[in-house]
Each structure stands twice: as C-alpha cells, then as structure tokens.
C-alpha cells in the first residue's frame, strides 16, 4: 500500500468516541503496533499549574463544554495528520477525533491514534506530537463548570505565519 492510500480519519463529533472501532479502521495487514492517546475530563485537579500566566489551584470540575470552529478545526486536524506523515513516514493509519458538547468527568474527549508496522518506529512519538499540535493549532475551546462558577479555558500558543 502506498503511503498516500493510508487511512486518515478526522472527526469532530458530539457522539461517544468508539476507541475500538477507530483503531480497527486504521489497522492494516502490515500493522503491528498502534499508539493510542485519549484524554478525558478530569474531575479533580490536584496539581497547581498555569494558563495564560494565571495560576490555578487544585479544584473540582463538574463538567466541560466544548465548542469548535468546525470547518477550520477539520482543516487544521488534517494539517496535523499531514505533519505527522512528514515527520514519521513509517506511520500507516492516523485517527484524530475530538468530541464536543457537554462532557462530564471520566468521559474521553479526544483521541489520537497512529499505527505502524512495529512499536520501535517512532509511533509513540507520532501520537504524542499529534495531541501536542492539536492543543496548539486546532480551533476548539472548552468552558469549565465548577461547583462555584464557570470559566472559559484559554490556551497560550500563538500560531506563527504559515501555520
């Protein structure tokens, strides 16, 4: 199979993310490894951190509400997949899925999966790169609802020209 025929699945959905079905779709007869990253809504944040230079303390999250600029987000998710293929030509299938809407703790919100022939091909790094880039350039936002209020979560990354 030529690289250009390798499956790339890009999706923004309000439906549950079906991990098994997605991995099945990017598994070829030549595939021997899949690196799957999925992020979920964290109900209890224990560590301190910062976003936009503003510190946040340990806190509880009731739910998150996700919003996307869907046509641009799909375009940028496709760009992330293209960048993965440029950096790791061993990657066979790629699935990038973002769930949007109102999502409660323990619910998977995002999936990045990459497949390759073997595990030592860079496939772990490819999936890691995918989620890091999604959080930089794909126009999706979340609003956090806590027991004592609500707040838009803003990222920090400012895209450069030609990004």
């Amino acid at each position, binding site marked *: 199979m030529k690289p250009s025929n390798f499956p790339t699945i890009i999706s923004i959905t309000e439906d549950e993310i079906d991990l098994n079905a997605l991995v099945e779709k990017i598994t070829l007869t030549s595939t021997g490894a899949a690196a799957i990253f999925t992020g979920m809504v964290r109900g209890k944040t224990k560590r301190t951190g910062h976003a936009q230079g503003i510190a946040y303390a340990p806190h509880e999250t009731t739910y998150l509400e*996700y919003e*996307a*600029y869907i046509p*641009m987000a799909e375009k940028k998710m496709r760009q992330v997949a293209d960048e993965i293929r440029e950096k790791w030509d061993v990657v066979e299938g790629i699935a990038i899925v973002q769930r949007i809407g109102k999502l409660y703790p323990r619910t998977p919100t*995002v999936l990045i999966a990459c497949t390759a022939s073997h595990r030592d091909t860079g496939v772990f790094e490819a999936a890691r790169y995918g989620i890091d880039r999604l959080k930089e350039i*794909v126009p999706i936002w979340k609003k956090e609802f806590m027991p004592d209020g609500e707040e838009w979560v*803003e990222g920090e990354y400012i*895209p450069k020209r030609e990004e």
Partner: protein
Amino acid sequence: MNKVKVLFFATMRTRAKRSSIDLELAENTTIAELKKTLIAKIPALEASLPSTLVSVNREFAFDEEMIPTNAEIALFPPVSGG
C-alpha cells in the same frame, strides 16, 4: 466595497454578545484596520484583542495582511481543545 462575515468564538463570542457580524469594508483593508472597525462597533472586544487570534478563510491571519473579497473571518482566543 468588500462584504465579509466575522465569526466570534469562545470568550470573543461572550464579549461580543453575538456569534457573528456582517461588515462592509473598503478594498484592501488590513486585519489591523478591521480590528479598529470592530472595536468601534463593539467596544467590549477591545480588552481581549491583544491576545486574540484571527483567521481568514480558515487559515491564521496577521495584522498586516489584506482581507480578500467575501472573506470568512473569525476572532477567537488561543485554543484549548483536547
């Protein structure tokens, strides 16, 4: 005149109290000039503009760039998906 649509997302939508606005711009208007026009129409946007990202026809755009005709423009904060 150049008719464009400006979409607002996340905090910008909250600040603007609307999800979009239709504008008629002069030919060769830049992103920086568009920002000034928007502040004049919706003063609540001003405080957020320094950290706001802009896209034109679904690609990131920058202050000195000229806006093409019938563009789909969007204003939004740095992304926080995942």
